[in-house]
């Protein structure tokens, strides 16, 4: 069994959060377009976009994925087998009862939504049953959030900086707290499939 397999084995994961910035759209499409319609874990995705207005992410991913895609709505319960996108212009948080909450407080790392804000709240809600994935990007949002997931016993993954379109973000996360796994995109997709089997 390879490293990925042995770390994933026996892990009970209930949800996955994925953060990405510059180059993140292509990276996410590469990971997620390979998932089958039977995929049951909820996936919560956050992509920094240049304008904070309404994004077309739901349409872009909805047209290419086998699972339903929707925008995370305030107070909505998180359902299995769906991909949720953080809406533009708001922070997205996860409550203890696994529902979403939005906030328009000040940007964090010049970003709203911020990956740190999402990951920290999701880590508090799911504890060890959360997997966090941080992809390509040009700033250091997500490093704190991924560290919090790790501190709470969750599974942490950074995209291999050598493969990342912009390696700053995964590098910052690796420097802040060594993730459980540093993987290229195709292996991250395989990992999700393995986690989904348990």
């Amino acid at each position: 069994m390879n490293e990925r397999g042995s770390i994933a084995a026996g892990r009970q994961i209930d949800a996955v959060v994925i953060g990405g910035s510059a180059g993140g759209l292509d990276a996410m499409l590469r990971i997620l377009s390979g998932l089958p319609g039977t995929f049951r874990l909820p996936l919560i995705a956050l992509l920094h976009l240049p304008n904070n207005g309404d994004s077309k992410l739901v349409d872009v991913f909805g047209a290419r994925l086998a699972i339903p895609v929707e925008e995370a709505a305030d107070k909505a319960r998180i359902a299995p087998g769906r991909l949720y996108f953080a809406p533009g212009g708001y922070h997205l948080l996860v409550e203890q009862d696994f529902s979403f909450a939005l906030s328009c407080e000040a940007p964090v790392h010049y970003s709203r939504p911020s990956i740190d804000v999402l990951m920290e709240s999701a880590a508090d809600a799911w504890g060890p049953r959360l997997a966090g994935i941080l992809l390509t990007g040009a700033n250091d949002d997500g490093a704190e959030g991924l560290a919090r997931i790790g501190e709470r016993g969750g599974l942490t993954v950074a995209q291999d900086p050598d493969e990342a379109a912009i390696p700053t973000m995964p590098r910052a996360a690796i420097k802040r707290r060594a993730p459980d796994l540093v993987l290229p995109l195709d292996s991250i997709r395989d990992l999700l499939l393995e986690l989904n089997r348990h």
Partner: protein
Amino acid sequence: MKPDATDIELKLLAEAIFLRYGHDFRDYSLASQKRRVLHALSQFDCPTISALQSRVLHDPEAFHQLLQFLTIPVSEMFRDPSYFLALRREAAPLLQTYPSIKVWVAGCSTGEEVYSLAILLHEEGLLERTLIYATDINPASLDKARRGIFPLSAMERYAASYEKSGGKRQLSDYYTSAYESALMDRFLSANVTFADHSLATDTVFSETHLVSCRNVLIYFNRKLQDRALKLFHDSLCNRGFLGLGSKESMDFSACSDSFETVDRRERLYRKR
């Protein structure tokens, strides 16, 4: 999973504040409140939320300072310009039919939205017969709102939003610049009553024709959201308008049957 110490402390802090000062944060959304309280910890130089609670209980001035962290003084003029376009298109023609108009801006924070609405009402020929109630729980925010002074750099950003909102003049027609500040024209706030009012503990104070409460309900849990929506419903006149934030909705509320949707995208509703 048992709640950890921090989550217990958060609940106790909200309880202590309610008992001591009457401000009710017990039904706020926990995840974002936790961030705000943890941020306050570092500013107050307190090692734990329990330590902060002790300080706040015994020192009203410390509570006043903490209130600045617990509330969210992030606001802008003409945020989501298309909302204001919808108000011009859908609400203004009906408001025209009333001899006098009352508008409630609930959770007005530092007043940016109040001045935006006043400008809109002025341009629609309604401001002179409108009374605006601008309410918030944070006295410091209300003071700022009353003063109507905003950073000039921000006004330049707001000007683009004003234009997209259907603005008929220049935003700079409505303020005087001095140094790095913009002072809003006094006629805009002549008919505005700034008042302390809590959606969590207070009741309805007037009949209104339009309630605008944007990006306030997201900080509440479902129970408190329902309470606030019920207040708006009770306050609104027959067929009165309600505007919410662009990512807020009544989909999860017990009140959803009490309102009809005028413009779903712009979160504009009318009392049934």
